[in-house]
C-alpha cells in the first residue's frame, strides 16, 4: 500500500443556500457607489440616471419637511387595508377550494379567468362601484392580492400530506379539528410563500391605485415626479417602495422562521 495516497476530493458542497444577510447589503451599497462614481465621473449622464447623493438629498428634504409621513401614512393604510382584505378573503376561498369539490369546480375556472386581467384596467369600474375615494383604492389592491393568494392557497392545501389527514380521520377527529390542526398548518408553507408574491403585487398596485384622485401617497408622489421628469424625486419615491418591499419580505421571513421551524 502506498502511504502517500491523495485524499479524496470533496464534491458534496453547494445546493444548500444559507442566509448571509450582509451580502445583500454589500451588493446594494456597491451598486449605489458604482452609480455615484459614474454620475460624478460623467460617464453616466445626469439625464439618464440621477446621482444617488442627490436622491438622498431629496429624500432628506422630504423627511425634513414632514411630507414623507404625509405621503407614507395614506399609502400604508391603503396597502394594509387592501392587502389584509385581499389576502384573508383569498386564503379563505383557497381553503374552501381545497376542501370542497363543488367550490373547486365552480371557482377554479373563475379564478383562472380573473387572474390574467390587469387589475389596473378595471380601475374605472372600481371608481364607479366604490367612488373616487379610498374605497376604490382598497378594492383595487384587495382584488390584485386576492387572485395569487387563492391560487397559492389551494395549491398548498392540495399538497398537504394525505396520510396525515387519513391519520386524523382514523383517530376520529372532527372535520373542523382536521382542518384546523392538520390542513391549515400543513398548508402554511405554501400560503406564506404565496403571500410573498401577493404582497409584492399589492405594492405594485399601490401606485396604480393612487393614479386617481389621491393628493397624498407614495404612488401619487412618484406619478407627479414622473410627469415632471423630476428624476431625483421619482427615484426617492421608488426607493421608498423598494424599502417597503424589503420590509414586507422581512416580515414574512420572520413569520416563516417562527411558524415553520418544524420543517427539516
Amino acid at each position: 500500500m502506498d502511504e502517500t495516497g491523495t485524499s479524496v476530493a470533496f464534491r458534496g458542497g453547494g445546493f444548500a443556500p444559507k442566509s448571509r444577510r450582509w451580502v445583500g447589503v454589500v451588493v446594494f451599497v456597491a451598486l449605489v457607489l458604482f452609480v455615484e462614481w459614474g454620475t460624478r465621473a460623467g460617464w453616466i449622464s445626469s439625464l439618464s440616471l440621477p446621482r444617488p447623493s442627490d436622491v438622498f438629498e431629496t429624500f432628506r428634504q422630504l423627511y425634513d419637511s414632514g411630507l414623507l409621513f404625509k405621503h407614507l401614512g395614506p399609502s400604508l393604510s391603503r396597502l394594509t387595508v387592501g392587502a389584509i382584505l385581499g389576502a384573508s378573503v383569498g386564503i379563505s376561498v383557497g381553503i374552501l377550494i381545497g376542501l370542497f369539490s363543488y367550490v373547486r369546480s365552480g371557482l377554479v375556472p373563475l379564478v383562472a379567468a380573473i387572474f390574467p386581467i390587469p387589475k389596473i384596467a378595471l380601475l374605472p369600474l372600481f371608481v364607479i362601484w366604490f367612488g373616487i375615494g379610498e374605497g376604490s383604492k382598497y378594492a383595487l389592491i384587495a382584488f390584485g392580492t386576492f387572485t395569487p393568494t387563492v391560487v397559492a392557497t389551494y395549491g398548498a392545501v392540495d399538497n398537504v400530506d394525505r396520510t396525515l389527514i387519513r391519520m386524523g380521520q382514523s383517530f376520529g377527529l372532527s372535520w373542523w379539528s382536521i382542518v384546523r390542526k392538520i390542513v391549515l398548518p400543513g398548508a402554511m408553507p405554501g400560503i406564506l410563500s404565496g403571500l410573498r408574491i401577493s404582497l409584492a403585487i399589492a405594492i405594485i398596485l399601490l401606485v396604480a391605485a393612487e393614479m386617481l384622485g389621491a393628493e397624498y401617497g407614495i404612488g401619487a408622489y412618484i406619478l407627479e415626479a414622473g410627469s415632471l421628469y423630476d428624476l431625483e424625486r421619482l427615484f426617492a419615491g421608488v426607493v421608498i417602495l423598494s424599502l417597503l418591499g424589503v420590509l414586507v419580505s422581512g416580515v414574512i421571513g420572520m413569520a416563516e422562521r417562527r411558524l415553520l421551524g418544524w420543517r427539516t
Partner: protein
Amino acid sequence: MLAPLISCKRSMMDIRLDGIGHSYDDFEVMRDISLDISSGQIVCIVGPSGCGKSTLLRFIGGLERPKLGRVLQLGEPPAGCLNPLTYIFQDFALLPWRSVSGNISLVLEDHGIKGAAADKIIEDVLARTKLSDFAKALPKQLSGGMKQRVAIARALAVKPAVMLMDEPLSALDSQTRELLMDDLVELWTRQPFTAVYVTHNLAEAVRLGHRVVVLSRRPGKIREVVDIDKPLAAREFGDADLEKTQKYLWQLMRDEARAADAELLHG
C-alpha cells in the same frame, strides 16, 4: 350475580370479517374473506405484494367500505376506550409541527381531555414506550424507531380495543425492528391488546402473531391460517420451531409471490 359477569364478557370486543370482497372498477382486489379476530390476540396478515392487505385493513378500520360482505364488531369496547379501532401507520404519520407530547394530545383534545388529565395520559404512554425524555422534541429530531414508538404511544393513549398496524416496522432498519418487536411483545405481555398486523416480513409474523393469515395473490383469498401456540414472551430471535413455521409460511407464499411478481411485470 350474573350481571357483572356478562358485562365483563361484553367488554371484550371481537372483530368478524364476513365474506369481504372488493374491486376497484373491474379490478378485483379480494374475494370472500371471512375471519374472526378475537380479543387479546395478534393476528398477522401476510401475502404477496398487491394482494389487498392494506385495503383489508382500511375496511376493518372503517376508512373505506368493501363492495361485498361486512365487518362486524362483536361486543362493546372496554370502558374508557376513546377510539376502538386505532391505526399505526407504516410512515408514522406524525404531525411534524407538533412536539411528541403535542402529537399525543392531538388525539385526546377531540375527546375533551385537556390539561392535567391529558398530561397524565401522555406521561403514562410515554413511559410505556420509553420516550419520557423526548416529550418536547419535534419529530424531525427523532430517529425512525423513536418516531414509530411515538406513533405507538399515540395509539395507546386512546386505549384502543383493536390496533390496526400496516407494516409498522418496514420503514426501519433490522436492528431497530428487533428492538421494537421486543417492545411490542413487552407491551402485550404487560397488558394484552388485540391487533391486526399486516407485514411482508415473515420473521415479524412468527414473532408477534398468535395466528398468521396467509393471503393468496390478487384477488386476495385466505390461503391458510396458521396458529402459533408458543407464548409471545417465550419466543426469541432465531427460535428453531419458529424458524420451521417461518419456512412453512414461506413455502406457502413463494409460489404466490412469484406468480404475483410475474403478473405485475406483464401488467
